[in-house]
């Protein structure tokens, strides 16, 4: 490729073009800035677009109603593709623009950002991701899961099995099929401790990530003749797990997943075939809750929806709304305490960590965040797929929290010792 004058000039012009882009200016208005770099393209594709859509729709709803405590919410959305340089750039950019909260929705990213967020005092939301021990607020003041972690979810599932067996799991066999990553192995310590306590027998079967071929796992699961099966994965691993469970003729009403099971997974597996499977619900699904109805009427109805309307009310969409309501509630609390700001990380942190008995008009279980407990109380419920939607089969409850907190403290102690 040789260079002549024309291509030289064109090239220089192309190089110079990005430099003259104007910087975005905002109207003088009291705003709270959130930055939501999430993974739309690599690993977390199964959840991100719906989760993010829920968040944005709720922020639109809040802003259209005049904001919260006199503040408007500004949310910057970028894609970090689970790639650390991009995520860290997004974090630094958000920080520079004055963001006081970041929600990366990715475990590897959250882990790399933990030391930075603690140092810079920026609230990091690690809902259903990140470190489970971040529930210990005394060790991680600025890392807020605001949701039930995997250990609690495992505890909830075991409690439900116990209820099904009328109070005793003695001599029963529980099979735990999990993706062979740190995330998949996370519930194992809790399940092992509970196995000793409740007297059931635990067998774990790992499958290789991302789990698109589990055909060799499920025959073994079947032959183990389990009383209950827990399957632990995300995205494609979940649908394959269910498909294989069906192909191996396991009774679906004794199979349960974590929070990562959605309506679209059921579409892939086949709505009828998957009838009976259970999942943990951290918030109400469907379009019944008042918040979702409001969004449908005032946001989606007016054509301001952030995505396709048929996604509104799906499980992951509601998780997004759930997180958004908690963030907004944190802003409200913070504005109550110090109405004139200044809007900083610690300001919002005060608010987020004083959320008490918040239910968002019936979307969440009563959630209380304290300086010690960032998990919000550890309440969830079990829902069962009935062929068309997930129907709750229990009330909000929390279980085995003593065991869970023992594990949380064990890990957070270690973080305190080695990290900082």
């Amino acid at each position, binding site marked *: 490729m040789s260079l002549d004058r024309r291509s030289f000039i064109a090239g220089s012009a192309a190089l110079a073009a990005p430099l003259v882009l104007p910087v975005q200016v905002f109207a003088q208005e009291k705003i709270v800035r959130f930055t939501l770099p999430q993974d*739309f*393209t690599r690993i977390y*594709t*199964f959840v*991100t*677009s*719906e989760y993010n859509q829920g968040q944005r729709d709720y922020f639109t709803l809040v802003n259209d109603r005049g904001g919260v405590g006199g503040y408007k919410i500004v949310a910057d959305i970028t894609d970090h593709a689970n790639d650390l340089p991009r995520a860290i750039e997004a974090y630094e950019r958000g920080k520079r623009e004055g963001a006081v909260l970041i929600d990366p929705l990715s475990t590897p990213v959250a882990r790399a950002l933990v030391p930075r967020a603690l140092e810079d005092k920026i609230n990091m939301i690690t809902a259903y991701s990140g470190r489970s021990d971040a529930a210990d607020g005394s060790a991680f003041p600025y890392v807020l899961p605001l949701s039930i972690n995997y250990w609690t979810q495992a505890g909830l599932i075991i409690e439900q099995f116990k209820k099904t067996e009328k109070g005793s799991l003695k001599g029963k066999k529980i099979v735990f099929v999990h*993706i*062979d990553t740190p995330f998949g192995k996370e519930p194992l310590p809790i399940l092992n401790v509970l196995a000793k306590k409740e007297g059931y027998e635990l067998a774990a*079967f*790992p*499958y*290789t*990530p*991302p789990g*698109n*071929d589990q*055909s*060799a*796992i499920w*025959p*073994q699961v*079947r*032959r183990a003749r389990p009383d209950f099966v827990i399957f632990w994965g995300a*995205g*494609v691993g979940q*649908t*394959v797990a269910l*498909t294989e469970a*069906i*192909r*191996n*003729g396991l009774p679906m009403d004794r199979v349960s997943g974590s929070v990562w099971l959605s309506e*679209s*997974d059921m*579409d*892939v597996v*086949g709505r009828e*075939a998957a009838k009976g499977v259970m999942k943990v619900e951290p918030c109400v699904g469907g379009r019944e809750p008042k918040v979702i109805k409001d969004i449908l009427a005032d946001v989606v109805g007016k054509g301001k929806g952030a995505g396709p309307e048929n996604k509104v009310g799906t499980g992951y969409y509601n998780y997004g709304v759930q997180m958004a309501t908690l963030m907004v509630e944190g802003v409200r609390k913070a504005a109550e305490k110090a109405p004139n700001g200044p809007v900083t990380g610690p300001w919002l942190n005060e608010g987020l960590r004083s959320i008490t008995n918040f239910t968002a008009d019936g979307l969440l279980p009563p959630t209380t965040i304290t300086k010690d407990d960032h998990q919000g109380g550890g309440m969830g419920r079990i829902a069962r797929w009935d062929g068309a939607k997930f129907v709750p089969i229990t009330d909000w409850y929390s279980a085995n929290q003593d065991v869970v907190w023992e594990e949380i403290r064990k890990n957070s102690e270690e973080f305190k010792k080695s990290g900082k």
Partner: protein
Amino acid sequence: MDWILLAELSTNGVFVGLMYALVSLGIVLIYKTSGTANLAQGAIAMTGGYVTWALATLVGVPIWLAIPAALVIMFGFGLLMERIALRRMIGQPVIMTIMLTLGVEIMLRGILPGVFGAAVKRLDIGMPQQPLFVGELLLNRATMIGGSISLLLILLSLFFFNSRFGVVMRAVADDQTASWSVGIRVERAIAVAWGLAAVSATAAGVLWGSTQGVDWSLSLLLIKALAIAILGGLDSIPGVLIAGVIVGVAESLATGVLDPLVGGGSRDVVAAVIILVTLLLKPHGLFGRHHIERV
């Protein structure tokens, strides 16, 4: 030792291995004719899955028509890819073509989920899901059917190589310059190889997509396909068949026997170890031709 479990895993492995072999068939076809390693094969399988899904769901074509239509479209796609990109790479170092196919893979993984949405798509081709018991032994109907279809397609491609055009392709595979000098259109043979590779990838994409749903993770079929292609010999189609069965059974048994020992999913690493061992002991694979330069 639980013999029934082993038997079950092995049968299962045979069929799953055949389904993987379908992906590596394309790699072998391309390597055989043009000497290029196609690392985009997984992404092409994904593309095939997406195209079939789009035809069936967005356009509303019935599935029995959507699959052949997708095969035709993808044949054209393969031709196009060879014409636009690969043909320019003739004479470039190997790393360039490897990187080019990796670039194609990255781009396809961006375009298709970007245009059609990243959420998992359901592709229902009417595979029966109910378990089939033969005594104690459970046979997985879906993998059995999938494996049989793959077997059929691979055998078909073997027959194809005995047809007139197949002979032309074999000639090109043997010696490009010599074929050129006797009037064979080498480029066309290579282009057709790419087209056929895309077709076999699409078939694999549809089979796998019906089990796991269609999304980007279909492109991960690549590493298994590579293991099979290398074990069988990069330029041998019967090799694909046999290596597919070997890899399938080895992985399946590893999951049953090895996993409890190492406490983890050893499945992927089995493919990697097979590649390594093959390359170190018998670099041309089980059935490949001895043409590798020893250093």
